[in-house]
């Protein structure tokens, strides 16, 4: 249907008017774009992971060399017309606190281990189908964790146009965090190194927790920040994170919590609790929102994980760090 509509557009552009009575020419003020609308869901989750929120969203597993796993995924066409989808594995990176699938169909060690039962799908309107993802860890695979995504993709058909035009390629995917090894699973651990207060450029207070991934598996961090012991005994929060932050082993960065407008500068007792899967940590520190606002916009606050040193943070963090050092007792 889309193709015939496109042909009508071309005919009109060329000045060819269909003979009167053949059919009524469609009104073409702005040709409506067809919409791409489809989705995926992970269906199979290992029984022992059923309390793990990460494992309900992503394929997270630890496998010895030579093993094979199967995971069903559901693919749904939400369009009122037929959807032509491709399903394929892609490499992914964890950078700047985000898990990002690579462009196109980027191969990696992990993608060569992954196959999809039905890589090409034609779905009727509102049809949904199950597809099967198989991951085989070959002999000789190196130990360690790799990242990838299983994408379902729809690409728009090219059409004739004037000026600048965009063709859309949409992808919805299920992340894969796959660790290879033998014996007990590699440890997941992270440490909240500091909790500090600062302000965005527009003056809104923000609580910043700096985290090190000290384990051998990637973490997807979310959590809450609460304030107590403020001026006059006030308390505030809990606040949830501005954006979930993902760190690979060895990476570190910041996770931020936007506090309420109009909060006094402090000092406050800030308690930040973070969780990734079954792993949790909490740090309590004295913070202050005062001082010169850091040169942050809301969006750059989200990416403090870039590791750019921020003078305001260091000053505000000194008090928190002192408290942290006095309290700490390493296990």
């Amino acid at each position: 249907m889309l193709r015939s509509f496109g042909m009508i557009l071309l005919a009109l552009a060329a000045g060819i008017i269909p003979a009167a009575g053949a059919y009524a020419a469609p009104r073409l003020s702005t040709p409506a774009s067809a919409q791409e609308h489809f989705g995926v869901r992970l269906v199979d989750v290992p029984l022992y992971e059923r309390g793990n929120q990460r494992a309900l969203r992503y394929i997270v597993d630890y496998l010895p060399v030579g093993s094979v796993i199967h995971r069903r995924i559901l693919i749904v066409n939400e369009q009122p017309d037929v959807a032509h989808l491709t399903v394929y594995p892609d490499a992914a990176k964890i950078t700047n606190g985000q898990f990002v699938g690579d462009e196109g169909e980027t191969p990696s060690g992990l993608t060569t281990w992954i196959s999809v039962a039905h890589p090409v799908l034609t779905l009727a309107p509102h049809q949904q189908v199950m597809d099967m993802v198989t991951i085989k860890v070959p002999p000789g695979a190196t130990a360690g964790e790799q990242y990838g995504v299983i994408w379902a993709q729809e690409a728009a058909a090219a059409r004739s146009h004037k000026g600048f035009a965009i063709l859309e390629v949409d992808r919805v995917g299920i992340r894969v965090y796959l660790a290879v090894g033998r014996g007990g699973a590699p440890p997941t651990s992270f440490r909240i190194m500091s909790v500090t207060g600062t302000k965005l450029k527009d003056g809104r207070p923000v609580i910043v927790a700096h985290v090190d991934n000290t384990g051998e598996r990637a973490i997807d961090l979310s959590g809450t920040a609460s304030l107590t012991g403020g001026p006059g005994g006030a308390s505030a929060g809990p606040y949830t994170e501005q954006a979930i932050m993902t760190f690979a082993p060895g990476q570190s960065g910041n996770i931020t919590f936007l506090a309420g407008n109009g909060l006094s500068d402090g000092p406050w007792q800030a308690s930040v609790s973070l969780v990734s899967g079954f792993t949790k940590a909490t740090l309590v520190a004295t913070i202050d929102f005062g001082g010169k606002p850091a040169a942050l916009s809301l969006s750059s606050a989200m990416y403090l994980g870039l590791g750019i040193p921020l003078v305001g943070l260091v000053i505000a963090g000194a008090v928190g760090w002192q408290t942290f050092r006095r309290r700490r007792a390493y296990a």
Partner: protein
Amino acid sequence: MSMHGGKVHIYSVLAAGVAITAATVMAAGPAMASSTQSGSQATGNSVTSSPAGDPDTTLTFTVNVGALSLTAPATADLGSGDPGTTISGVVTPVVVTDDRALLAASWTATASESDWTTGGATLAETIPAADATYTPGTITTTGTITTAGTPITLANAPAPVVVGSAGVGNNTATWDAGIAVAVPAGAVGGPYTGTLSQSVS
């Protein structure tokens, strides 16, 4: 079923709304064995609770399905302009619908762009992706979800543009993607096509 280090692991089917259909039902027990929360509470060091569960027990759940989906127009016209000017248009609406009914819902939407080409797509007939920017407009949401949008300079490699986190249950986020192309002064004339790739996972 699969072999996993010699043991057989039977996989449960993800449930949002559960009807247990198999004969064997696992004995009720805590989903996670809780470990003592000592000392480390105040130090920032993490504690991992070992997941309980018997990998050899058969248990099947009926699936109540709901997916993470993306909606975007298949094509968008940005209009025309002279070399040395900026052409702006909007890809609208872009919608992330998260119907997975998760207790902890989150997703990341990324965008990347091919180079813009016209004619035979030679070097002279190409405008690099980095001459264009993607600016997510105001994000409206339904359900419980926190969103943060970031304007980016487009590139062939994907970069995050909108992140949804702290979600509870089904949620949606809708925004207009402003696309602006700074047409180089030396660009040759013609209709240019770019492929915008939006991904969510």
